[in-house]
């Protein structure tokens, strides 16, 4: 259930953490304090333990960072890294004159310490496996860091957005970084306060004090936003509606790579039949799901790569509306014939399967119910089962699952693990034992090639291949909706990932400047 928490913006909330107090005269926040209402709290504030590894921590910088168009640009590195011929050695040169918040200068030792701690077994870092390509990290001199890889891994540079911590570590409750804001205080369950780093190498932020307040419930954040307690927040589309067109408030709808779809068990007779999966997909009324469950803030999804990302293959998004007739035809042809109870069967086997969803996640619950209702119309009997992740995991090889993933960064992220047969049966990656040698080859090609054109071609073909197989039935891409009070320059819209800390729209909050 806690797994659902990063998605809390659009999901269930168990508490009504609200304050509907009317705005006090003059506004409750002192002028230079900017309050952001977030839906989920950070697990910890340590980059090596996974805090904002994709950037967006505001307190830490990585070697590289991302521009609004998601391209990589140097941050603590002085320039883009140099990769050796065989792709196994990546060398970074550090930026001059960068200081940690406590005044210590940044050296290559800090970088080595960060990565070594992350990779050390006793750290128990949950993101360790993302960095498993790294053999070792060394510092030949104070300004140079060399990554030695076990195998050629082009997306490594993408992973270097990981925040750098000072050599020797820091107190877990008092993080020290090099970022645009320095840590002031953290009241768990309530809020975290930060102050501008006046000496930031990228220029001091215009916002002097930044408070990140945590409120899991969507309506509560909406109420607190309306009351003037928050200067900015993220809301589900339904709750954000009231702010549209309001004076002094701006609503930003940000596209995301965050999808929801159904993972099938391929070794089961019913879901293992491509006709069933294809017909199921045809029966889905994705537009109704977007309109009602997402209140219009989203897009129908047909593959793992969002149409807002340059890697997207437009060919796969051809189905525009639900096609129950087409689905019925497909099933009839494949020998799945409707019985008296309206459920199809083939050779005595009923067209029925269980669709699991995480019990604490109301978005996935509603999508599951909608999918089951659509499937029923074409004679497929889909049985929802709301379970905890621990109950879901052992059943993933047998039952379908409503899942969510999505990264806007590199197409290698997640997709390699989700669709490569080497990961079949491994945890949450490919539990349904999907296996297609063509897909395996395409994923390997994309991962190991350094040539952009070759990669693009590989991932285009990959999207087509899994759509042809209907390896997953993708339903929707979410839009993340942000509401910001006041007029700021420098707000840059981008494409969000499945999860983010102070990422998303707020990743560049240090470059925001009041327009007044």
């Amino acid at each position, binding site marked *: 259930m806690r797994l659902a928490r990063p998605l809390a913006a659009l999901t269930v909330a*168990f508490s*009504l953490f*609200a304050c509907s107090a009317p705005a006090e005269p003059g506004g409750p926040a002192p002028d230079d304090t900017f309050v952001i209402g977030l839906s989920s709290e950070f697990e910890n504030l340590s980059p090596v333990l996974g805090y904002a590894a994709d950037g967006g921590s505001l307190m830490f910088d990585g070697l590289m960072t991302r521009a609004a168009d998601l391209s990589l640009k140097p941050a603590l590195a002085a320039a883009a890294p140099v990769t050796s011929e065989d792709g196994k050695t990546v060398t970074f040169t550090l930026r001059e004159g960068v200081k940690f918040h406590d005044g210590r200068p940044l050296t290559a030792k800090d970088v080595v310490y960060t990565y070594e701690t992350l990779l050390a077994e006793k750290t128990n870092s949950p993101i360790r496996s993302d960095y498993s390509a790294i053999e070792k990290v060394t510092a030949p001199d104070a300004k140079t860091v060399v990554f030695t890889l076990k195998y050629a891994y082009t997306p490594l540079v993408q992973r270097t957005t990981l925040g750098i911590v000072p050599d020797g570590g820091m107190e877990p409750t008092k993080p020290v970084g090099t970022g645009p804001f320095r840590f002031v205080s953290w009241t768990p369950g309530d809020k975290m306060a930060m102050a501008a780093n006046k000496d930031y190498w990228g220029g001091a932020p215009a916002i002097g004090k930044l408070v990140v307040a945590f409120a899991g419930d*969507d309506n509560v954040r909406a109420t607190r936003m309306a009351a003037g307690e928050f200067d900015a927040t993220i809301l589900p589309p339904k709750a954000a509606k009231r702010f549209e067109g309001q004076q002094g408030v701006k609503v930003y709808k940000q596209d995301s790579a965050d999808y929801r779809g159904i993972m099938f068990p391929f070794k089961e007779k019913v879901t293992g039949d491509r006709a069933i999966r294809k017909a199921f997909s045809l029966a889905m*009324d994705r537009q*109704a799901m977007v309109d009602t469950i997402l209140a219009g803030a989203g897009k129908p999804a047909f593959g793992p790569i969002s149409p807002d990302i340059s890697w997207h293959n437009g060919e796969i998004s051809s189905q525009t509306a639900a096609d129950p007739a087409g689905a019925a035809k497909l099933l009839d042809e494949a020998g799945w014939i409707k019985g008296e109870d309206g459920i199809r069967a083939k050779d005595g086997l009923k067209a029925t399967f269980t669709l699991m969803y995480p019990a604490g996640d109301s978005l996935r619950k509603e999508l599951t119910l909608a999918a089951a209702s659509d499937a029923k119309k074409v004679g497929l009997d889909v049985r929802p*089962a*709301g*379970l*905890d992740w621990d109950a879901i995991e052992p059943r993933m090889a047998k039952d379908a699952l409503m899942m969510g993933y999505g990264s806007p960064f590199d197409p290698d992220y997640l997709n390699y693990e989700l669709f490569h047969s080497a990961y079949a049966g491994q945890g949450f990656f490919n539990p349904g034992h999907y296996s297609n040698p063509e897909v395996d080859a395409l994923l390997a090609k994309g991962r190991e090639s350094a040539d952009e054109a070759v990669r693009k071609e590989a991932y285009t073909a990959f999207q087509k291949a899994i759509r042809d197989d209907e390896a997953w039935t993708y339903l929707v891409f979410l839009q993340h909706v942000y509401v910001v009070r006041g007029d700021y320059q420098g707000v840059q819209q981008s494409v969000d990932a499945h999860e983010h800390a102070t990422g998303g729209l707020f990743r560049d909050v240090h470059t925001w400047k009041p327009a007044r």
Partner: protein
Amino acid sequence: MGGRIAAATLAVLGLAVLLVPLLIPVDQQLVDLRAAGLPPSLAHPLGTDEVGRDVLLRCVYGLRVSFLVGLVAALVSMVIGGLVGVLAGSFGGLPDRLLMRVVDGFSSLPHLLFGIFIVAMFAPSATAVVVSVGVTHWTTAARIVRSEVLSLRGRPFIEAAVSGGASRARVMRRHLFPHLLPHLLLATVLMVPHAIWHETALSFLGLGLPPHLASLGNMINDGQRSLLAGDWWSSLAPGLFILAPTLAVSVLSQRWRDRLNPRMRSELAL
């Protein structure tokens, strides 16, 4: 609420729970996204929920689910309590004292907290809810049964049976059980609303029945999100469906208690 109104309420709800699913068989898992969040109207007397299901109909289905879970949980606690009570009452002496200490200990535990603990450790499900309610609520039954057994032990017909050489098991089966049954049944009936309350509280916290199942607690939990946006009907209605039968049973039980013997009255502090 007078006794008659209470009885009538229970009768109407009982009939609805039994008949409505037969007369209007609706798959409660089917949703209609194009009819979501409608306010009360003639077609939907209590409106529709956030995925377009009729709230009134869902309340009736929900009461059915909650009632079943509550009944089974009450039965479980009666069985456990009955066994402990019979053992304590018929053995007497040290076993009795020890068992009653256990009963005291158990009844002093905060029930919902332990219910939460049990459900948390075994994943929310109907079984977990039944077990968590059953194992925390058997003490009342144990006390009732024990005191009945104690009072029966002194009665002439039991003494006669024992001195006539009947085995302990036979005495229990032939003489004790028929006398205990009505008390146990009544205690079960009175326990049901409490068990329903427990189910709804757990479901409300997200620790009860599977969330897509129509249960009153789940409905209040779902409705909670619409409530702050102004859709009051989807949380108000299921609450009334908990309130009405609970109140009716408590009114009726008040009347019964007045007619029952005073011992029962003091033990049944539900």
